[in-house]
């Protein structure tokens, strides 16, 4: 799968699940796995850390 930002190759682990965050090793952009169908994933830009994030 290609990084939507810089076109680098993204390796998505087989056991990755929807809601997990994938970081591009080249450009550092973070993507959330929005959906997964077998080895085909749909990615969307991950939300940035919010003021109210945490425990």
């Amino acid at each position, binding site marked *: 799968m290609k990084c939507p930002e810089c076109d680098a190759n993204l390796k998505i682990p087989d056991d990755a*699940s*929807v*809601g*997990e965050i994938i970081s591009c090793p080249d450009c550092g952009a973070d993507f959330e796995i929005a959906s997964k169908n077998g080895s085909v994933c749909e990615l969307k830009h991950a*939300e940035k850390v919010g*003021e*109210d994030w*945490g*425990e």
Partner: protein
Amino acid sequence: MPKFRIVFDRVRLEEKMLEEKAIELGHDTKMIDAKTTNISTESKKSDFDFGDVVLERCVSYFRGLHFTACLEFLDVPVFNRLEVANNCGNKMFTSLLLKKHNVPTPKTYFSFSSESAVETLDRQGYPLVIKPIIGSWGRGVILLKDRETADAILEVREITDGPLDRIFYLQEAVKRPPRDIRVISVGDQVIAAMYRTSTGGFKTNIALGAEPVPCEITKELEDVCMKASKAVGGGILGIDIMEDEKRGFVVHEVNNTVEFKGLAKVAKRNIPKEIVEYAVNLAVR
């Protein structure tokens, strides 16, 4: 077979551990993304697949809080309950409840304008710790050592001027070893505890690199944690405790959506198992 649901907005290691454990325990388990779920005043429980019980695990406090309100509207059993999430998500509410219920807690001062905050600082003397009333991972927690530092921080608050920036939460700097204790309590039990030792500064958050070290669960520790748990309404909680040189244990925070990957490394009991079993047993009995 109990139907166990985890509501998330970002899957962290904790959510994966909880999901794996629930499946291993034989529960019909599903993950539900809060970000793609729509609920209305016209919604009914049967419109959704929220199962027998939901564990609310959103990393965004406000998202989780409001989602919980919707779940309770639909009569879906959810942990933690809305009241508990509200009590724990706001440090000021937590401090007030702890004190009200005679749980030892640091002296904390509340001001509602920067001018009043300066008055408090001048009256109580430095240092005091300023904390945002909403927030985690030690962010925005600053030791105000002198007037100059305080003026700078208060000025930044005035510039950002969010609604919560107008609430000033100032806490005594407790004299303690350079560590604190994180306890996980589930219902009426303490299930794990660790020391979090600072890596240099005065903060001891695992998110900032503090090392987890096992902590013995003494009767005294258990008692103070159970009082703190009851004060905020019970449930699945992360209780933060300092060891004051004179007073002993003082509870300074109670966390609602507890992170436990650090503690899981040193805990004797299986934290995800305890959480899942507690939620299922209470909802299904």
